[in-house]
């Protein structure tokens, strides 16, 4: 299945700079958010949005065409 992924801030440095953090992932059916994080080597805390809705459950199985956004999570100032 196809997942549209967009990474923000320092997370997008996981991808080549010319992508500006935007990529399309080909994943097996039943893949989860945790699988994406594992594939990208992201071990720090992140804020996740799936199709524009905040998601805290990393075991959530994704569906073909889902749009996933990953943000770094700090308090800001």
């Amino acid at each position: 299945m196809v997942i549209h992924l967009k990474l923000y801030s320092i997370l997008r440095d996981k991808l080549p700079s010319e992508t500006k953090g935007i990529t399309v992932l080909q994943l097996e059916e039943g893949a989860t958010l945790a699988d994406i994080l594992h594939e990208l080597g992201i071990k720090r805390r992140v804020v996740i949005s799936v199709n524009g809705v905040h998601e805290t459950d990393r075991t959530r199985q994704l569906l073909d065409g889902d749009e996933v956004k990953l943000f770094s999570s700090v308090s800001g100032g």
Partner: protein
Amino acid sequence: MAYGYNGKILHVDLTSRQFSVEEPDTAFYRKYMGGSAMAMHYLLNEMPAGADPLGPENVLVLALSVLTGAAISGQSRMTAAAKSPLSGAIGDSQGGGFWPAELKFSGFDAIVIKGKSEKPVYLWIHDGEYELREAAHLWGKITGDAEAIIKDELDDEKIEVLQIGPAGENGVRFAGIFSMSNRANGRTGLGAVMGSKNLKAVAVRGKKRPSIANKSSLNQLAKWGAANLADSDIAGLGKYGTAETTGSNQSIGSLPSYNYNSGVFDGWEALDGTTMYDTILKGAAEGKQDREGRDTCYACTVRCKRKVEITDGPYKVNPHYGGPEYETTSTFGNYCAIDDLPAVAKANEMCNKYGMDSISCGATIAWAYEAFNEGKLKLNDTDGLDLSWGNAESMVKLTEKIAKRDGFGDVLAEGSERAAKMIGRGTEAFLITCKGQEAPAHMPQVKRSLMIVYATNPFGADHQSHEHDPVIEGDFEYYTDRMAVLGFTEEVETRSLSDEKIRFTIASQRMYSTMDSLNLCQFVYGPAWQLYGPNDMVEAVRTVTGWDDVSFDELQKVGERRINMMRAFNAREGIDRKLDVLPEKLFKPLKGGVSDGWKIDREEFDAALDTYYGMCGWDVKTGIPTLSKLHELDLDWVADQLGV
């Protein structure tokens, strides 16, 4: 021998033009450490209760800490404190840059300023010497121009200049104090206090580096920070600035929009730090923004400060005035439903040029936008400016009018709470103020410990007075070691307001209070996601001062001492639990996004306050520190002042 500090406090009476130098003993420095706690010592001792915040009786303290000027990230900050003209309560604000370290090098640890000069003056401190110089020719100048003139007439480019802009001269109640023309002691209106004293600037230069008790250990700690920065949680803050948090706040429904009526904003991505990095940071067009578009404070490797340059279009921006933080992109952006980043950057430039707090300024404008959109303000109130949600042009114009107290700007220069009283027509319902200070861009309806801190914080709504909820909730697993130092070994339920959450609020509030007394940057040091953790903070104090037996508990007491002194200051002014309230708006449901329908429950809030006061050792009815608490903190002299 004193390590880390000079042992000298400069006292200046602007009325009599007299100076004196106090040399406190080691016990004084160890008890207060510097910064905000030290400032409270002077304010309580040297300012009479009931002083007019804009009168000569107000005392302005500029205080460094025992760590300021040591060669390690996150230490070059200064606390400014006085009675606030915005709230009538204690005023307190921290700012960074190079001025704090340079003041330390000039031979002093703090400046206590009293009285009022007959004519505009500036203070010139260099290598242990000090003088007042005439400043009539600087009065009315924007920060960048005044800074250049001072450096030129003193013939030294390396002088650091702390100053007010025209807004401080004009008594804008949220005017700030600025160095480098872009680093702000922004909050609580202390620039107006400086202006009321006819003090335009404090210029400093010195060559005396502080003695460090254990240089090799300090070097080791500094090197560890530099080596671990890229893998830390603040790496993004460094590269993309604090506005990198826009997207995550949008996702969790905590991006205050439409003047705090919603926690989401459709145009958020235009304001995000990632967008700023790609588009308007100096050098972005050539891909050189990492080198040209980022700036830093003395000895700091994080480089989180922004330099925005815009040379085309309606909003040209000079990089000398820095670039907007998350708070600024929020108040001028999503608070006003504006998704025009160059316009927001222009408003930020104006705040730095004219010397205003960008949080209160943007939020006060957002209050006017809501009043206009609800039909309570008409074009004949606003000098013809259309304040429809999203109107960027009017927002930029209003920012300048506020600084100059021009027309409707003169009303808004009083801050939103006073403006609402002046206008009436039910516009009080649109306020987001606590103790007169406009709320920053983190929402208590979402991160619920904020409701306690916004309501009870002695200097009004503040987002940097404790650690926010996520680290004791879903993110707890990432910070178990550091959180254990604070006394927390288990996470709490998301969005709870349990006793354990309140205990966490107090413990982290004390640590942040300690950091405001050590004047440590709250991105570099902190209880969880920051570069350095609680044990590192203890290590920094030990290595710099040589006080090898300093413990985390002792430092927490410094922070607790500061908070209690602030509560005592307010009690002297007749400010107690009755003013520990939240704006009515927060008890109404948010609209849209993940936080749709979320609101604060009044009974739950009142019960949480009871618990909070009890845990703090304060009288639950009044919120005033008890005799036993003040005695425990070695503050019997404060108890005497209060008569408790």
